[in-house]
């Protein structure tokens, strides 16, 4: 998969990650959190990224924003972004605090975080926080920025936006805070929105509200979304395409139907079967994946999933790292036996 010559991005491409590696230097040693992740996002599509904790999905997203912690090393890889058809930007070549990068953040790329409780400044009103962004990227005056803030709050369906603009985060409920957060992320009409577990901390009815809101906003404004979550239900609900991550690698990508109805990787299959689905015929036991996610200091040799894989073949899977096998219709699987596994009844 390593590309030595840089191929031009197809016209519909908005963002392309190629073989991204992120490592962290810790007291205990080097943690290889992201190990050769490649995925892309087309204009106006929703890419869902699923994985358990420690799969590196958030770290990858932060490397797009160049918002990694100070002890992070962006070891390898290329991230290309094309906000407008004519301007292609090589994000991986920009420095963290460069002017170009800052123009992208909040301007062309918006980001929503998991904890709406703590992701907004407690001592500034919602309006102030939005206005700062608008004034920074749009270069407009205070009055115009305030007008824009009210308009945005209305767009995310907060009641009484003209009053909300002067409220402080602690005066709002969790769902309202997340709406304010979305308004902040969308304040400059970004072409890409990165949503990092935006509904995990919310109740299920609030989660439904936020998902519906994001869907309608996406339809209306046409931005692409990278939606990170550990919940397969949420992915099925919102994503056009899905990337499944495990231990800092993308093990499978494909359209949402491919992933849910024709999963190619044993990990995807096993995960899908371990979640109880509503209204399903009752079964006595849940299918499980044996063992637990290895800690980042003891990553297995060969295929990283092999110690927990039901189909692992000794001598192959625990020795050699698998390469990506592509299938028609954009599905690709990182497994030695992709396409050869026995069909399973869902």
């Amino acid at each position: 998969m390593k590309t030595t010559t840089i191929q031009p991005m197809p016209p519909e491409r908005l963002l392309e990650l190629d073989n991204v590696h992120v490592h962290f230097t810790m007291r205990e040693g080097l943690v290889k959190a992201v190990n050769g992740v490649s995925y892309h996002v087309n204009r106006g599509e929703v890419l869902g990224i699923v994985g358990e904790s420690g799969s590196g999905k958030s770290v990858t997203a932060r490397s797009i924003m160049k918002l990694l912690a100070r002890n992070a090393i962006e070891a390898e890889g290329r991230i290309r972004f094309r906000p407008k058809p004519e301007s292609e930007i090589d994000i991986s070549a920009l420095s963290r605090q460069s002017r170009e990068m800052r123009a992208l953040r909040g301007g062309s790329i918006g980001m929503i975080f998991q904890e709406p409780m703590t992701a907004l400044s407690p001592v500034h009103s919602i309006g102030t926080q939005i206005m700062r962004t608008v004034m920074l990227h749009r270069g407009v005056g205070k009055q115009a920025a305030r007008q824009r803030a009210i308009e945005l709050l209305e767009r995310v369906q907060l009641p009484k936006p003209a009053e909300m603009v002067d409220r402080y985060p602690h005066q709002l409920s969790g769902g309202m805070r997340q709406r304010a957060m979305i308004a902040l992320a969308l304040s400059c009409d970004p072409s890409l929105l990165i949503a990092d577990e935006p509904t995990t901390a919310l109740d299920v009815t609030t989660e439904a509200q936020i998902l519906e809101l994001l869907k309608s906003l996406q339809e209306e404004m046409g931005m692409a979304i990278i939606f990170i979550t550990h919940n397969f239900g949420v992915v099925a609900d919102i994503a056009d395409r899905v990337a499944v991550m495990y231990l800092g690698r993308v093990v499978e990508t494909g359209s949402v139907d491919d992933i849910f109805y024709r999963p190619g990787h044993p990990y995807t299959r096993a995960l899908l079967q371990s979640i109880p689905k509503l209204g399903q015929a009752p079964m006595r036991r849940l299918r499980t994946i044996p063992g637990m996610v290895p800690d980042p200091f003891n990553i297995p040799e060969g295929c990283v999933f092999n110690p927990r894989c039901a189909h692992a073949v000794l001598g192959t899977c625990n020795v050699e790292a698998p390469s990506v096998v592509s299938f028609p219709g954009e599905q690709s699987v990182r497994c030695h036996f992709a396409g050869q596994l026995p069909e399973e009844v869902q």
Partner: protein
Amino acid sequence: MAGFIFRRILWAIPTLIVVSFISFVIIQLPPGDYVTAYAAQLRHSGDYISLEQEALLRAQMGLNDPMIVQYWRWITNIVLYGNFGHSLEWNAPVSSLIWDRLGLTLAISTLSMLFTWAIAIPVGVYAATRQYSVLDYVFTIFGFLGKGVPDFLLALILMWMAFAWLNMDVGGLLSPRYQNAPWTIDKVINLLSHLWIPVVVLATGGAAGLLRVMRANMLDELGKPYVETAYAQGLSERQVVWGYPVRVALNPFISTVGWALPALFSGDVITAVVLNLPTTGPLLLQALKMQDMYLAGSFILILSVFTVIGTLISDILLAWSDPRIRYS
């Protein structure tokens, strides 16, 4: 907000009462009373009053009344007439002795506090944003030293160094020849050349402590998600740091302004003794040593009242800067 301020002022009243009561208790603590001390003073100068006269005096001054009655008389005199009692040592009303000294104390304390803040805040922010850098270590050492060196020792050393190397006599606030001279530019320069040592001494001690608080607060805040949100909006590092976490990190800081004030007063007492400044410190010390208790008690009362007011101000400032408190 007005309601909050009102409630907070209401709060300060019981504290003031307790403070004033403790000051009075201190006045009463030494064995003997005003008359005993007065008689002793007379004897010292060769005069003599009989035991009967003493008893008569006691009855006249109401010294046989219960303590609470005496306290009531003392405090109403202060509140209603500004009468703090009589200083035996100086043979003058206390109120004639204290006000100009208090003014100087306040001036030095305020100046030192501004100085403290001017050092502690930027340095604390810098140390936190550049954690483990060389300068961070330098500031950390400075912080520890400032905490470890007692104020009076620092004053002594500075005074000695100024004397030994700069050949300056920096004790007092004015050189003798300006003591009674009218205010001129020269006199002001002379004053400033004396003022820097107490200010530096007081500010160093205070800044060392606050700098560490500020650094710790900032480190806490810098790790919070809203800082990441701010970066994700495209703000530059300076805009993020000074616009968001500093605002929040200042809150615990502001809430301790009130405590910085008593610390400064305390420091001032000792520093002033060493540097022989005409502030409250040496007078208070002398009054305590001579058991001139009305004078001493009044000082303690007034300093404590200032402290309570300082705490009050810092609470109001905190409410003003932090909406979470304002609206709860």
